[in-house]
C-alpha cells in the first residue's frame, strides 16, 4: 500500500482549499502579477524627458532640436537658460537628458567648420542612457552625412536587420512567457511548503504520523490539489497573454502544457524539501524566498543570462526555472518544437528526479 490514505488526504485538502479565505485570491494573484509585469515594466525606451540649453538660437540649432524630437526617443520639456538650470533639471530628475548647443553652432556649420553639440545624459539608468547615447550619436552621424550630400540610399553597404518573433520589440512578449514560469513556481513551491508546514505548526501532522497513512499517500495527496491550481493558473495566464497582450503562441500548446507538467515535478519537490526545513510558516516563508529569488533574478526572466558574469551564469544552470523559461519563450515566441527544446526538457526531468529523491529522503514519518 504505497499510497494508503491518498484519497482521504485528497478529499481533506479539497475542503481546506474550499474553506480557506486565501483561496479567493488564488487566481487574482497571477492576474495582478501579469498586469504589473506586462504593463508597468516596460523597458522600451521612448520619450525620454529632455531639456534644451540653446545659446545659438539660429535656424540650424532650431532644426537640430526638432530632429532630436523627431526620433521619438526624446521628449522636449522646454528650454533652460543657464548651465545651472540644466544641471538642476537633471539632478532633480525632471529631465534625463540635456542638449547644450554652443553660441557659434550655426555659424560653424555655415562656414564649413565642425559644429559641436553637447548631450548630457543621466547615466543612473543604464538602459535609458545607452539608448539615448546611441540614438544621439546616430543622429549626429546621419546629419553629418546629409550635410555632405550623402543619403542612406547611397551607402556602400546596406545593413538590413530583420527582427524575428517580436518585430515591434514589445517587452510584454519577452516578459509574459517568462512570467508563466515564475507564477507556476511561486504557487507550487509556496502552497505545498505551506500546506505541510501549517500541519506541523498546528500539530495535525503529528496526529497523522501516528496513523498508518503512507508517506506516498500523504505527499501525493498534498501535492495534487496544488498541481491542479498551478495548472489552472498557467492556463489563465496563457489566455490573458494571448487575448489581452496579443502575444500569440507560435508553437504547440500541447507541448507547452506537457513540459509545464514536467516542470511541476521539481517545483513541487522543492516545496516539500522546504517544508522539511521549516518548523513554522514564517520560517517556510523565508526559506521559500531564498529559493525564489535566484529563480526570479538569475533564470533569465528579467535579466539576460548572456550578459551575466561567468560564475553567476554558471549558477543559472542550476535553477530549474531557467530551463522552463527557455522552453516557454521557445514555444510561445519562436514556435520551437520538442527537438529544439530536448536539452531543456531533459534538464527539467533531471531536476525532477533530484528533488523528488531529496524530498523522499528528507520527509520522515516520524518527528525529530
Amino acid at each position: 500500500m504505497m499510497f494508503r490514505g491518498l484519497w482521504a488526504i485528497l478529499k481533506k485538502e479539497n475542503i481546506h482549499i474550499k474553506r480557506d479565505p486565501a483561496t479567493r485570491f488564488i487566481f487574482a494573484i497571477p492576474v495582478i502579477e501579469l498586469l504589473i509585469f506586462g504593463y508597468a515594466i516596460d523597458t522600451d525606451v521612448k520619450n525620454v524627458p529632455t531639456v534644451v540649453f540653446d545659446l545659438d538660437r539660429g535656424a540650424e540649432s532650431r532644426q537640430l532640436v526638432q530632429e532630436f524630437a523627431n526620433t521619438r526617443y526624446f521628449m522636449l520639456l522646454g528650454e533652460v537658460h543657464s548651465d545651472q538650470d540644466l544641471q538642476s533639471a537633471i539632478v532633480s530628475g525632471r529631465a534625463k537628458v540635456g542638449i547644450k548647443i554652443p553660441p557659434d553652432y550655426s555659424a560653424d556649420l555655415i562656414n564649413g567648420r565642425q559644429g559641436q553639440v553637447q548631450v548630457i545624459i543621466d547615466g543612473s539608468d543604464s538602459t535609458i542612457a545607452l539608448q539615448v547615447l546611441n540614438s544621439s550619436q546616430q543622429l549626429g552621424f546621419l546629419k553629418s552625412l546629409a550635410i555632405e550630400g550623402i543619403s542612406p540610399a547611397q551607402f556602400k553597404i546596406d545593413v538590413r536587420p530583420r527582427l524575428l518573433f517580436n518585430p515591434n520589440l514589445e517587452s510584454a512578449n519577452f516578459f509574459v512567457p517568462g512570467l508563466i514560469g515564475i507564477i507556476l513556481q511561486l504557487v507550487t513551491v509556496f502552497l505545498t511548503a505551506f500546506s505541510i508546514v501549517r500541519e506541523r505548526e498546528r500539530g495535525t501532522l503529528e496526529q497523522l504520523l501516528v496513523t498508518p497513512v503512507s508517506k506516498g499517500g500523504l505527499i501525493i495527496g498534498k501535492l495534487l490539489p496544488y498541481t491542479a491550481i498551478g495548472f489552472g493558473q498557467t492556463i489563465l495566464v496563457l489566455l490573458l497573454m494571448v487575448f489581452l497582450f496579443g502575444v500569440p503562441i507560435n508553437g504547440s500548446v500541447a507541448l507547452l502544457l506537457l513540459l509545464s507538467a514536467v516542470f511541476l515535478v521539481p517545483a513541487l519537490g522543492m516545496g516539500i524539501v522546504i517544508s522539511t526545513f521549516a518548523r513554522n510558516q514564517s520560517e517556510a516563508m523565508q526559506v521559500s524566498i531564498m529559493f525564489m529569488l535566484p529563480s526570479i533574478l538569475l533564470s533569465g526572466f528579467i535579466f539576460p543570462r548572456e550578459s551575466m558574469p561567468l560564475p553567476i551564469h554558471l549558477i543559472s544552470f542550476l535553477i530549474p526555472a531557467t530551463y522552463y523559461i527557455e522552453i516557454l519563450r521557445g514555444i510561445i515566441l519562436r514556435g520551437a518544437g520538442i527537438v529544439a527544446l530536448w536539452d531543456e526538457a531533459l534538464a527539467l526531468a533531471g531536476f525532477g528526479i533530484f528533488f523528488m529523491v531529496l524530498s523522499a529522503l528528507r520527509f520522515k514519518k516520524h518527528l525529530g
Partner: protein
Amino acid sequence: MSVVIKAEGLSKKFGTLTAVDNVSFEIEAGEIFGFLGPNGSGKSTVIRMLCGLLQPSAGGAELVGFDVVKQSEEIKKRIGYMSQRFSLYEDLTVEENIDFYGAIYGLARPDMAARRRTVVDLAGLEGRMEQLAATLSGGYKQRLALACALLHDPKIVFLDEPTAGIDPVARREIWDLLFRLAAEGTTLFVTTHYMDEAERCSRVAYIYLAKLLALGRPQDLKRLPEITPDGSQWFAITSDDATQLLPELRRHPSVVDATIFGEAVHALVRHGTAAAALEDYFRTQGDASVRCRAVPPSLEDVFVALTRIHRGPMKGR
C-alpha cells in the same frame, strides 16, 4: 492477563539533553496506566517513542508484540493517540474529521458506518456533527479527538493530558468514558497532572528528570518505605487560622515536610511525635483550633516526597 506494552531501558537523547533515561515497565491489557511527572520530565517523549513518532536512542519497546522501531507501521494500525493539544482540523466539521480518520485507517464502508455510530455515541457527539471543530468547546474538542482516536478500535490508546484545561464536569465525563473503554479491554496510557485522576488509575508511574522513580498501584505507592521513613507519620492538620499554619509547621523541629492538601496541611512528622503533642504545641503558640489526625499519605504527598528525595542535596529545601 497479557502484557501489551513492554518497555526496556527506553532512552532518548536530544543532543546533550537526556529526555528519557533508561525507563522500563510492562503494562497489561485493560489497564488504565497513569503516567505522571512534572512538565519537561519526559512524559510526552516516552509516549512519542511508544507510538513510533520518535526513535529511541537506546533500549526499546514492544506493543502488542511488535517492535516500536522495526514494526512501527504495524503498531500504528493498532493504537490510538490523543496529543496534548487539539490536533484535528479546525476548518473541518466534526463529521468530516471523523470520516477523514476513518478513511485514513482504511475502514471499509459497512464497518465504518458501525464504528462511526459507536464512537459518536460513546463520545456523545450526536447533534454536533455539522459543527466546525474550531467552534467546539474544550471538552467537546477532547471528545472529538477521542472519537477519532477510537475509530479503528485500537488495542491501546495513548492520551497525553486529555483533561488539561477543561472544566470539572467535562473532565469527569471523559474519565467515565475511559473507564468504559478499559472495561471493554482497551489499554489506556494516560498522562495527567491531576491527582484525583491518578488515584483512579489501576497503576501509576512517576517520572522525574527523565528517570522513572516509582511504579505501582496507588495504594502500594503510598506504602513505599521512602515516603514515610523510620517510623515517621503523615498527619492531616487543620486550623481556623490556616494562613499561619503552613509556615508554623515548617518551622517545627519534628516536621520533615508540609504541603497544603485541600483544606488541610499534610505534614510528614518524625517518629515519636503524637498528634496530641502537636495540638498542644499550637495551643501554647496561641492557636487552640489546630486539629491533627494521622492519615495515609496522599498520592501527591508521595510524588512530592519522591521529588524531594531525588532532587538531591543541591536544590533541597
